[in-house]
């Protein structure tokens, strides 16, 4: 009886905590999805290599104090403009896709992993920038930690994942393994 009571108590606790996760999930997703919107709808010149607004130029500003193993790769891609353009399209698409998935709560755990990698990569490349404060580090650290948390917790309330979880409670089955994407 005590065991049942404890299990129920734990389930209720999880149920309550779960209700608060969308507060962070939606904001985190919007940080990345809105980057996609800015470059494609608000200011499309950001993806025009002939424009002074071209976001490729941002990568030059990372160079002076980026983490040393990254400097060589940054220099190489900056010297190959066509590859830089492809990279920026891919990066923008990934930001848009996984930002939207995070907002919708569709494969939240996978989105958490991808956003963690995006946030920490930016932190290693441009994390030293901070004209007003230690800005880029703060962004990378907080977003990275939040996304990593969602990789472990998922977020099923107010999400599409709750329907997937009902149908496939153990996750996506690939061969004989279950991958917990939600």
């Amino acid at each position, binding site marked *: 009886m005590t065991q049942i009571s404890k299990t129920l108590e734990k389930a209720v606790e999880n149920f309550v905590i779960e209700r608060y996760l969308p507060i962070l999930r939606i904001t985190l997703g919007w940080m990345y999805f809105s980057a996609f919107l800015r470059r494609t709808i608000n200011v499309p010149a950001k993806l025009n290599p002939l424009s002074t*607004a071209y976001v*490729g*130029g941002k990568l030059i500003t990372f160079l*002076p104090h980026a983490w040393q193993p990254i400097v060589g790769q940054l220099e190489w891609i900056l*010297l190959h403009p066509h590859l830089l353009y492809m990279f920026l399209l891919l990066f923008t698409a990934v930001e848009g896709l996984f930002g939207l998935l995070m907002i919708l709560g569709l494969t939240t755990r996978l989105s958490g992993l991808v956003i963690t990698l995006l946030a920490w990569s930016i*932190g290693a490349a441009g994390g030293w920038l901070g004209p007003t404060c230690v800005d880029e580090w703060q962004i990378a650290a907080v977003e990275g*930690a939040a996304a990593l948390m969602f990789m472990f917790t998922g977020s099923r309330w107010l999400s599409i994942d709750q329907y997937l979880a009902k149908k496939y409670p153990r996750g996506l089955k690939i061969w004989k393994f279950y991958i917990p994407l939600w």
Partner: protein
Amino acid sequence: MDRMTALALLGFIIATGVTMGLYQINFQGFTHLTNYSKTPAYSLAGTQLFKNGTLLLHVIRVAGPDTYGGFIVLVQVLYPNGTVAYEWNSTYLGHISQYDIINKYNLPGHLVHSDGFALVVPLGQSAIVKLYAPVTFSPGTYIVRVYDADGQYEAYGIKFQVYVTVNE
């Protein structure tokens, strides 16, 4: 320890480690806090001076805000004792032809250029700027120094100068 607790601890250690690691590596936050975005700094490594008065100024902007350029308003060639051998002022630097500037990274909006008032050097850009003096330099060692618009020729312990040798 159950599997859930071990995973939670692992996540905690990774996230905290990356946060603190980024803070230390990017800003030396636990030792000597340094924010390289506050004021412009320049490297002049690779600069060459020739007897006929030509200076190939190899300039890289290595610190300062990313949202606008660094502005070089004075370039000096100094004798080793510190007296001026020749200098190019803001009027000259503000009107250098783009043909005399070779940028390493060809991205619009991030090119070293003259804007009528100064030589503008965006953060991270590397360029060779050809300057011509109507004088000849005797063989020997000189100091080439640049001044930012804020009047400084040093920031973060980096002097915006380099020793060059004029050969016979």
